[in-house]
């Protein structure tokens, strides 16, 4: 609504006024104007720069000493693992769990039922969950830094989709049947290696590995491999597709001691390498060009990171299927807890990711006991609310800067 004032400027403007009809403007030339008060920068200099804290109290992130944080995480992991061994369809008390483990370490195991449950079934399962959780978290942390994108997850590189093709071929068509229990692992490792090579060579422009190319090629080739998996399921035996779907959702249901050494060895080597690269990773998080100006060989670092994470994801997927959400969410949870410095994120992430997966597996096999849920369901249900709570407490990173 316009103001109903009769002297409304709108009405005045409707009068046809040409330049000659207009009442002569008072001639306020520069010479008639009263002299401006002299305000030059030299007479009223700005105060020297002082970076004053904003009115809001500066949020201090918890910067507890790293050894303390690691110790707490380690205790949590051990508690989770003992719980993971003790709780199940047959309940055990933690004391007898320790006793069995000590007996085995001392070299005189008993042949009791408890011994069999702890040593043959639950301990390898819990250890495998811990290794896979640590591997996926570490891979997720690195991939997010590699492509400088918070939404990246370890499966972005196409490795898991390739592994799925291999595993599906084994489960539905008996590929690698001569390898027996190793067949699925062999199939998924082959698929993972093929996918990794494909993504690597397709996303190289010239001799460079660029983040954008990596994301695009990873997504596109993942989609391609997934459609191959779908095609195999479509052509395969309907009864066998059940086991494929269960594998695709991830599970530690078939865990045993023979599955453990390779992922554990890859994890240890990868983590040692990555911890030595924590500073260059921090520099890379600033961007490729700042990293180059800080003396980091960006191309070589990217190449190594790609290979290391692909290997970790490949062996993890081979023993446990495609367990989603851990590699995406746990790195963020860790960053929100201890900051983004990779010297802190990597070691804390190893322990935290392991704990997360052990707890997730415990829930997956006890909530709807005697059935087992796919662990991917649990990781999403655990991870999503945790991350949302943390994001809402720490708004800096996700779009709002104040």
């Amino acid at each position: 609504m316009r103001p109903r004032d009769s002297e409304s400027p709108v009405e005045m403007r409707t009068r046809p006024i040409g330049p000659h009809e207009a009442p002569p403007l008072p001639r306020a030339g520069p010479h008639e104007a009263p002299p401006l008060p002299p305000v030059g920068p030299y007479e009223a200099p700005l105060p020297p720069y002082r970076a004053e804290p904003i009115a809001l109290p500066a949020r201090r992130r918890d910067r507890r000493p790293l050894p303390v944080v690691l110790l707490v995480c380690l205790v949590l992991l051990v508690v989770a693992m003992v719980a993971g061994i003790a709780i199940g369809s047959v309940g055990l008390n933690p004391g007898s769990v320790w006793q069995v483990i000590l007996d085995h370490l001392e070299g005189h195991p008993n042949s009791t039922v408890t011994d069999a449950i702890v040593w043959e079934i639950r301990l390898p399962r819990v250890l495998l969950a811990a290794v896979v959780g640590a591997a996926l978290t570490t891979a997720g942390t690195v991939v997010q830094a590699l492509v400088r994108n918070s939404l990246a997850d370890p499966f972005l590189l196409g490795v898991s989709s390739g592994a799925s093709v291999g595993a599906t071929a084994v489960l539905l068509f008996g590929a690698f049947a001569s390898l027996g229990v190793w067949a699925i692992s062999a199939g998924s490792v082959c698929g993972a290696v093929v996918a990794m090579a494909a993504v690597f060579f397709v996303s190289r422009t010239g001799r460079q590995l660029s983040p954008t190319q990596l994301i695009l090629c990873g997504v596109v080739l993942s989609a391609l491999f997934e459609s191959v998996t779908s095609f195999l399921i479509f052509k395969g035996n309907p009864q066998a597709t059940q086991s494929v779907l269960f594998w695709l959702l991830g599970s530690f249901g078939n865990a045993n001691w023979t599955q453990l050494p390779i992922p554990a060895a890859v994890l240890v080597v990868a983590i040692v390498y990555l911890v030595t690269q924590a500073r260059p990773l921090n520099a890379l998080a600033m961007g490729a060009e700042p990293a180059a100006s800080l003396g980091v060989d960006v191309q070589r670092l990217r190449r190594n990171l790609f290979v290391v994470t692909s290997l970790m994801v490949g062996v993890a997927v081979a023993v446990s299927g495609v367990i989603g959400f851990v590699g995406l969410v746990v790195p963020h949870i860790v960053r929100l807890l201890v900051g983004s410095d990779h010297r802190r994120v990597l070691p804390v992430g190893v322990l935290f990711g392991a704990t997360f997966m052990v707890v997730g597996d415990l829930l997956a096999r006890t909530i709807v006991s005697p059935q087992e849920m796919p662990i991917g369901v649990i990781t999403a249900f655990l991870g999503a609310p945790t991350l949302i709570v943390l994001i809402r407490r720490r708004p800096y990173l996700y779009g709002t800067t104040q």
Partner: protein
Amino acid sequence: MWDVDIAVPDGSFVGLLGPNGSGKSTILKTIYRVHRPAEGRVLLEGVDLLAMGAREAARRVAVVAQESIVEFDFTVLEIVMIGRTPHKRAFDREDELDRSIVADAIERVGCQALVSRSFNSLSGGEKQRVLIARALAQGADHLILDEPTNHLDVRYQIEILELVSSLGVTVLAALHDLSLAALFCDTVYLLTDGRVVARGAPDRVITTETVREAYGADVLVVEHPETGTPHLIPRRTAQHD
């Protein structure tokens, strides 16, 4: 097509000027190893910078680029500490020396109050100050600035350049604002299409004619009333009355 010969004397502030796409950034990126030149050399006190190890070069030459985006949440202190990267080997821990160098760098740019703030929560001018502190923590006595005052308001543009020229380091800066460049640079190089078309003191290089020729822009170049340096006054190209 590239014919560039730029000399940056110790302790001087040298500006690279030229229109968008004239090659300012490319030259700077060649110095800090983002691009590899097909031919030509970058000499630092007579030594080929590109033949040096990357870490060694980073200890001599630091870079502050346009406002950078950091995807993850680092504190100001962490960002400045990243400047120590070229001094650290894989298993080195940061020691008292690193911490005192970082504290000194933060003090020199006047960011003491910001140390525990998240970098992403800072204003553009504060971010540039922090990145200058990171460059100082790198321990380099040569500073490359790639359009460091883009996105900044006029106060911060002046303050950032004033800060940089007060640091006592050798500066090579690509700058957009010719008037500001004239105020701060000892020598400027004017580039078009990857060639140096003029070099020398700002008052000789920045003239109405050179700006028209290099930028295709119609401006008046006048004398700054206080410093006598060239100052650009934009003009409208079309007549509107």
